[in-house]
C-alpha cells in the first residue's frame, strides 16, 4: 500500500555487482518506501536473485559500484548479520538444510538475537515454544516440525513456510522474498501469501522477486519492476505484471535475448 507519510526504507543507486568476475548487476536504481510492496520480475538470468543476495550481503558477490542506503545508512558498511539485525530479511529461494540443529533451537536463537538488538526481553525455551506455536498457526504448520532439524528433509512447501515463519518471528523492516512461490502448490501458495499479507504493514516493506505473475494474485504489489540483464528496464503497477503474463518478457526486452543468459 502506498501511504502519504511513508519513509524511504531502501534507496538503491547505480548498483553493480559481479560473481566470479562476471558482472551480473549493471546499474540498478530502486526506491522502496515503508508500506509498499514491490515485485521484481524478469526472465531467468536477469539478475533478480543476485540482487536479493547482494542486499543481504552474500559473500560470493562483489559489489563493484553504486550505493545502497537502508534507512539512510550505507548497507555495504554492515556485515550480513548486522544487516539482518538492522531489519533486512531474505526469504531464501533454496533454504539450506542444517542437520543436527533443531528448528526450535534455531528459531529461538534468531528470535532472541533480534529481541536483544531491539532492547526487548528474550524468551526462554518454554515461553518461546508458546510464542512460536501461535505464529505457526498463521502458516498452518504442523507443530512436529519444531523438533526436526532445520529444513532437513522438508518438502519444498515446508521450507518456504519455514522462511515465512522466520519473517513472522523477526518482524523485518524490509522483507526480500526470493522466488518464494517456486515449488509451491496452489494451497501452499495461498497459505504462504496469506502469511505475508498479514505481516505487511505501513512501517515495513516487501520486495517480491518472482518469475511468475501467479504470486501477485495473492500478494498485490504497488509497483512492478522488470529486470533484464542486470538492470530495471521497466516499472509499472499491477497491470504490468498481467501484461507480462500475456505477452512474455520479450515484449519489454531492450536487448536481443541472447545477451541475457549470463547467470542466475
Amino acid at each position, binding site marked *: 500500500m502506498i501511504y502519504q507519510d511513508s519513509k524511504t526504507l531502501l534507496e538503491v543507486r547505480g548498483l553493480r555487482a559481479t560473481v566470479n568476475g562476471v558482472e551480473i548487476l549493471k546499474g540498478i536504481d530502486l526506491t522502496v518506501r515503508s508500506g509498499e510492496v514491490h515485485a521484481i520480475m524478469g526472465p531467468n538470468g536477469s539478475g533478480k536473485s543476485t540482487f536479493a543476495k547482494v542486499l*543481504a*550481503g552474500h*559473500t560470493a558477490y562483489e559489489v563493484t559500484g553504486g550505493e545502497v542506503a537502508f534507512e539512510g545508512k550505507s548497507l555495504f558498511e554492515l556485515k550480513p548479520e548486522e544487516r539482518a539485525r538492522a531489519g533486512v*530479511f531474505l526469504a531464501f529461494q533454496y533454504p539450506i538444510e542444517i*542437520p543436527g540443529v533443531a528448528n526450535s533451537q534455531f528459531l529461538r536463537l*534468531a528470535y532472541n538475537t533480534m529481541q536483544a*538488538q531491539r532492547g526487548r526481553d528474550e524468551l526462554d525455551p518454554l515461553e518461546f515454544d508458546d510464542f512460536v506455536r501461535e505464529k505457526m498457526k498463521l502458516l498452518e504448520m504442523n507443530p512436529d516440525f519444531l523438533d526436526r532439524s532445520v529444513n532437513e528433509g522438508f518438502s519444498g512447501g515446508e521450507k518456504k513456510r519455514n522462511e515465512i515463519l522466520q519473517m513472522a518471528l523477526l518482524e523485518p523492516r524490509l522483507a526480500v522474498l526470493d522466488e518464494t512461490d517456486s515449488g509451491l502448490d496452489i494451497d501452499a501458495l495461498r497459505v504462504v501469501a496469506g502469511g505475508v499479507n498479514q505481516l505487511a504493514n505501513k512501517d515495513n516493506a516487501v520486495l517480491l522477486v518472482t518469475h511468475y505473475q501467479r504470486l501477485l494474485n495473492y500478494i498485490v504489489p504497488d509497483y512492478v519492476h522488470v529486470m533484464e540483464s542486470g538492470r530495471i528496464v521497466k516499472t509499472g503497477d499491477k497491470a504490468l505484471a498481467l501484461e507480462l503474463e500475456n505477452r512474455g518478457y520479450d515484449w519489454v526486452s531492450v536487448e536481443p535475448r541472447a545477451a541475457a543468459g549470463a547467470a542466475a
Partner: protein
Amino acid sequence: MSAVLQNLVNQPYKHGFVTDIESDVAPKGLNEDTIRLISTKKNEPQWLLEFRLKAYQQWLKMDEPKWPNVKYPKIDFQAISYYSAPKSKKKLASMDEVDPELLRTFEKLGVPMNERAKLAGVAVDVIFDSVSVVTTYKAKLAEVGIIFGSISEAVQEHPELVKQYLGSVVPVGDNYYAALNSAVFTDGSFCFIPKGVKCPMDLSTYFRINTEASGQFERTLIIAEEGASVSYLEGCTAPKFDTNQLHAAVVELVALDNADIKYSTVQNWYAGDENGIGGIYNFVTKRGLAKGVNSRISWTQVETGSAITWKYPSCILRGDNSVGEFYSVAVTNNHQQADTGTKMIHIGKNTRSTIVSKGISAGHSNNSYRGLVRIAPTAAGARNYSQCDSMLIGDQSAANTFPYIQVNNNSAKVEHEASTSKIGEEQLFYFAQRGIGAEAAVSMIINGFCKDVFQQLPMEFAVEATKLLGFKLEGSVG
C-alpha cells in the same frame, strides 16, 4: 577458508601459564635406576618395584607403534624427566593449607573445588604433576565403603586390592606406551566401589601437567564389585610449552557381576600453536573389563586438545549379557592429529556394544576414527551398532574412518553407519541472514552434530564441553 572461519578456530589457548611452585624433579633419562628412584621416593612394596622392572624389560624389547595415522618426530625417551612432585609434601588437613599459588592455578582452570565442588556434588582428587595434592569428600565416601584417592595412597593403604587388579586389564607388555607407563607411572587415581554400593556422587579428577618436559604417566584403576556403580569424570588441561610433552596414561576398569562403570573425559591439553609447534602427545591406553554377567562399561570422551591423540578406550565384554559403550567427540584444529576410536571385544553370550563417534576437523588437522569390533566364537547373540560421523570445517582438513570388523559367530549382528558432512559458507550465510554471527552458528551446528554424545555426559561436564568446543572452533569458519 574464509577469514571469519579462520578467526573462529584460531583462539589462543586459555590455560597457558606456569605455576611457580618448586618442583622436586628427577634427573632426565630412563634406566633401572630411575625406576628404583621412583619406587623408593614413593616408598613402594617390593612387588610393585618388580612389576615396574618387568614392564621396563618388556618395553626395551618393543618398538613404537607405526600404524596410527599420525606423524611426529622420534621421541627421545632419555630427554624426559620421569618424576616431578611439588615440594611441599606434608599432608594437608584442609583447603586453607593448600599453596595459594596452586589454588590460583585451579582458579584459572575453573576447577570446581571448595564450595563449588560441594555445590556441584563433585569430589575432586587433584593430580598436580604426579602427586595427589588434595582429596575432598574422602571421608564421606568412606562411610559407604568407597575408596577414592591417589593410587600412591592406595598402594600404601590397600596394597592387596592394587596388587590383585593392577595390570589385570592392561598387562605390562600390552603395548609400547602401556609398558612405559607400567614402568614409570608416578600417580593417578584409585577407586574401589564395594559390593552393592551405588556411588552417591560423580567422582572427578583434574589432571594437569606443570613442569616443562616432564612426561606425565598416570595410572588409574577403578573397580566396581558385584552390583556396584560409579560415574567417574576426568578433565585435563595443560599449560603452554614449546617442546612437545609426552603423556602416556593407562586406565583400567574392572566391572564384576551387575556392576556399572561410566567413565567420562573432557581432554583439553595444549594442542600446539597455529603452526603446529608444541603441544601434548597424548598416547593413552584405556580399557575396561566387563568381567561379570550383566556388567556395563561406558566410555564418553570429548577430545579437543593435544597435538597428537592416540587412544582407543576399549571394552572387553567377557560376562554374559554385558554391555560396552563408546561415545566420542574428537575435535582437531590447526595442525592437530587424532587417531582415536575404540575396541569392542565380545566374548560372553548376548553381549551388546554401541559406538557413536563424532570427528570434527578444522584448519590443517587430521582426524581419524579407528575402531575394532570383534565377535569371538563364544559370543552367541552378540550385537554391535556403530555410527561414525565426520564433519569438516574449511577445505584443508582431513577425516578418515578405519573400521575393523571381525565376526566369528553366525548369530551375531553387527551394524556400521558412517557419514561425512561439511560446514559450508551457505549454512553460515543462512545463520547470518537471521542475525546470527559465525561463532554462534558454528557452535550451534557443532553442538547439534555432537548432541548424541553430549547427552551422555553428566550435566556440568556437558556444559563445559559445549563451551570448550565453542572457543576451540572460534575462527575456523567463514
